[in-house]
């Protein structure tokens, strides 16, 4: 896997999570004040940085085959889960992730809570809301940085990709002071799901002792193959949904008449 591919995979995955975290920090900032929200967000990023800094060197010390087997299996399971969610959302089976609706819900809840000062934090509710939001969404970022980075012995590069995504999305969110609803979050999630699944399968198989035909070039078939599978499933779900809608529409005049 080239450094560029590693950077793109981690950057895209972290962009999805950063959009979700930014929505929560914006709600905390607008409802409770920017200082407390910023403290919470920075504290969570600091915790995640410590986790990556502590686990990164430990993971890279594990023999490559064992690391690829374990990390690849985790990535594969994690990636299929992302892809499955993205397909179900794109196919209309489950609702799309609506950043605007989530933002309005968080904002309404945050506005109702009573203010409480603790130490240098002007508003504890705003701090914990931002802290929890960034920490929860950021755990997936840390997981992706550690798995991709340790496998390629490039944790600094994976961390830089995650940092770039967080800075870019954070700056965009702060500039518009609104949830980044226009980011095609599900399309990104689909793309990242394909990448996580493909790289996970590739590394897990290598770690288990399999040898891919064409070595790394097998990824050029594996990744598009998984993407096509996901697209076919999405198309199938949409066609099924349209057929169900037609049946419902055809049945409703009959029901009205009776």
């Amino acid at each position, binding site marked *: 896997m080239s450094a560029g591919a590693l950077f793109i995979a981690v950057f895209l995955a972290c962009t999805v999570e950063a959009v979700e975290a930014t929505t929560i920090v914006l709600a905390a900032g607008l409802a409770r004040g920017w200082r407390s929200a910023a403290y919470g967000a920075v504290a969570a990023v600091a915790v995640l940085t410590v986790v990556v800094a502590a686990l990164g060197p430990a993971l890279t010390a594990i023999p490559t085959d064992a690391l690829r*087997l374990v990390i*690849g*299996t*985790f990535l*594969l*399971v*994690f990636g*299929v*889960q992302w*892809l*499955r*969610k993205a*397909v*179900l959302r794109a*196919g209309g*089976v*489950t609702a799309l992730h609506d950043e605007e609706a989530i933002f309005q819900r968080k904002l309404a809840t945050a506005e109702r809570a009573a203010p409480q000062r603790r130490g240098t934090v002007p508003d504890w509710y705003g701090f914990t809301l931002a802290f929890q939001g960034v920490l*929860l969404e950021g*755990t*997936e970022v840390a*997981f992706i940085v550690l798995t991709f980075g340790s496998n390629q012995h490039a944790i600094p590069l994976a961390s830089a990709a995650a940092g770039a995504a967080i800075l870019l999305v954070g700056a965009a969110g702060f500039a518009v002071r609104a949830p980044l609803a226009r980011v095609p979050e599900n399309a990104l999630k689909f793309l990242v799901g394909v990448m996580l*699944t493909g790289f996970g*399968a590739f590394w*897990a*198989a290598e770690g*288990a*002792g*399999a*040898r*891919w*035909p064409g070595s790394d070039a*097998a990824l050029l078939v*594996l990744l598009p*193959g*998984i993407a096509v*599978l*996901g697209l076919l*499933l999405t198309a199938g*779900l949409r066609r*099924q949904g349209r057929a*169900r809608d037609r049946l419902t529409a055809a049945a409703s005049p009959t029901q009205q008449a009776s």
Partner: protein
Amino acid sequence: MGRRVRALAAFVYDLVIGDDWRVALGLAMAVAVTAAVSRTAFASWWLLPAAILALLPWSVWRTAGRRA
């Protein structure tokens, strides 16, 4: 303390395993079979793509069927 450990365990489960544990189990079994077949003279690289090809559509259609 017990509540926090349970909450952490639930979070990790949701993070890694997600909504369909059968898919996670199926993939883990496919990795184990790949490791076993790799010790023989037969090719084993195709097992994980085959597992994805079987498990992802199965899980998606199962969920879609339940929610229809």
